[in-house]
């Protein structure tokens, strides 16, 4: 999987300090095109902070993040998204007062071709562009399996389906690489299974995935490679089987995670 080529995403000596608190001490890793990389670690290890730094929601205190060999330092989140690096959120991941298809249409924002003038004057390009966006929205809804709920308010959906809406939104933004922040947390077993299938479909489209997740069987099952964070540092990196055997990881993390493994199995 890994080769000598430059990774799609490179995180280089990134540190994040909040005042005196060190959220990330010194983080180095790369994500290669086409792979699924799992980022795990106990609560407070810095996983979400890492996501925020990579996607421009947070400025790193030190270091640099590069995507497609372009430095992301100083870019605003929407500019990072425009480069094809799109994230989801742990919570609050849908537009509650919009319908499901309305959510996806918002996600398709960048794909609209109509200019302000087209819109205000009601020109043909506006109509055409809207039509294209609607068609695109339906194909995304079919991909995630939500077309039957298209006209329901997002807030009326069960939790698992809302998470899918969040993923549909992110997919609508045309990612080259998708960052998923605990996508299956709070999902039941069948919802998780359905989500793993969806991950496969996303992968087939050639989208690279960086995944933060607490559900150990899920991460171990879908990831090509795992990075383990603890106290803001990477303590291990490698294929899932190797990580599961790593004594340092077991001590830091799987010690209390083992119960979860048992629970889900």
């Amino acid at each position, binding site marked *: 999987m890994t080769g000598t080529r430059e990774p799609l995403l490179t995180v280089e000596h990134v540190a994040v300090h909040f005042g005196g608190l060190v959220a990330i001490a010194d983080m180095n890793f790369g994500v290669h095109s086409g792979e699924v990389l799992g980022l795990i670690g106990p609560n407070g290890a810095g996983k979400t902070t890492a996501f925020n730094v990579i996607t421009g929601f947070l400025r790193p205190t030190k270091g640099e993040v590069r995507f497609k060999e372009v430095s992301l330092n100083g870019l605003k989140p*929407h500019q990072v*998204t425009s480069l094809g690096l799109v994230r989801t959120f742990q919570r*609050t991941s849908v537009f509650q*007062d919009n319908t499901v298809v309305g959510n996806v249409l918002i996600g*398709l924002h960048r794909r609209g071709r*109509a200019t302000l003038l087209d819109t205000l004057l009601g020109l043909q390009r506006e109509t055409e562009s809207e039509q294209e966006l609607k068609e695109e929205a*339906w194909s995304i809804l079919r991909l995630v399996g939500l077309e039957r709920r298209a006209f329901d308010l997002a807030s009326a959906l069960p939790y698992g389906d809302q998470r899918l809406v969040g993923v549909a939104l*992110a997919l609508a*933004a045309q990612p080259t690489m998708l960052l998923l922040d605990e996508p299956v947390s709070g999902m039941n077993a069948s919802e998780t299974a359905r989500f793993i299938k969806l991950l496969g479909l996303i992968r087939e489209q050639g989208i690279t995935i960086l995944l933060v997740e607490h559900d150990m069987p899920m991460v171990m099952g879908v990831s090509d490679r795992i990075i383990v964070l603890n106290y803001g540092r990477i303590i291990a990196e490698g294929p899932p089987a190797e990580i599961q055997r790593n004594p340092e990881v077991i001590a830091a993390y799987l010690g209390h995670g083992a119960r979860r493994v048992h629970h889900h199995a």
Partner: protein
Amino acid sequence: MRRAFALVFLAFLLTLPLWLQDPYLLHILITTGIFTIAAMSLNLLLGYTGQLSLGHVAFFGIGAYVSALTTLGFDVDIGPWTFVHEPWPVMAGFVLAVLISGLCGYLIGKLSFRVRGAYFVIVTISFAEVVRLVALNWVDLTQGPLALNNIPAFALSVPGLGEHTLWGKVPNYYLVLAVAVAAYILIKRLVGSRIGRAMVALKENESLAVSVGIDVTRYLVLAAIISAALAGAAGSLYAHYVKIIDPEIFLFIYTVTMVIMVVAGGKGTLAGPVVGGLIFGTLPVLLRSYLGPEFQWIFYGLFMIFIVFVLPQGIVPAVEQRLFPSTREPPPEALATVEPAKGEPQ
């Protein structure tokens, strides 16, 4: 269904001067119409982007002053220079009012959207107050408290037909109606497009909106520009209709009136400010025929409180829920071809 409602309502407004001969009532309808345009413009910011502009009357007043000064002409001394401006036609005044109000919207938006929420409210209130003080004290330009008098009536120059000055109530009624319909259509197109979706997305969940690539500043500033420009258009109509304006036009109460129109009618709906504008524009006059002056305002206040308590979402959303209980947008016909029942995608 809604379209039918809108068309019947428009037909009603179009035929109204044919059977309503009372010039006083027509006058009330004209000023109500002008304030309704301002309320529609406020709704774009308040209802769709969620930003409360409590200085919205500033854009209205700037439009009024710009239009009045353009058509009256002025000469002012700034330091060693003297600026002399000869009177221009009213149409030019109207266009300049729209442009300059829009420019002010841009500046306020750029300045204040870095820090939003309460700060935006404070900046807009302060802006309106500063503009009022300028209008009051720059006597050379604005005549200060003496007011700008003899503002010319609106004149439409139609190619081939020459210029028509709108003297009477009826032509002014139709002018205001035409501008209101144009403003309504512009706002409808805007909020129905991806631009409108971006604005609503920012209101609902900014981080999420940003994460799908929506540029916050760009769309908030755009909303502020269009909102201010429309308010400026309303201000221009006002100046050329009442023909006299003074710094009182910037009073806070006018902004409050607009906010009441929007909130009572239903913010974030297209029809909300129209319904709210018509009710709260004409209510004081209707009450006048039945109640003594002391009770008019008591009733007005009670009615407002009643609406806020009983219909917190506003009148239009409440009525819609009553009329169309399970309203879900039906799939557009065009989608029927895209979305045939292909069964489960799995």
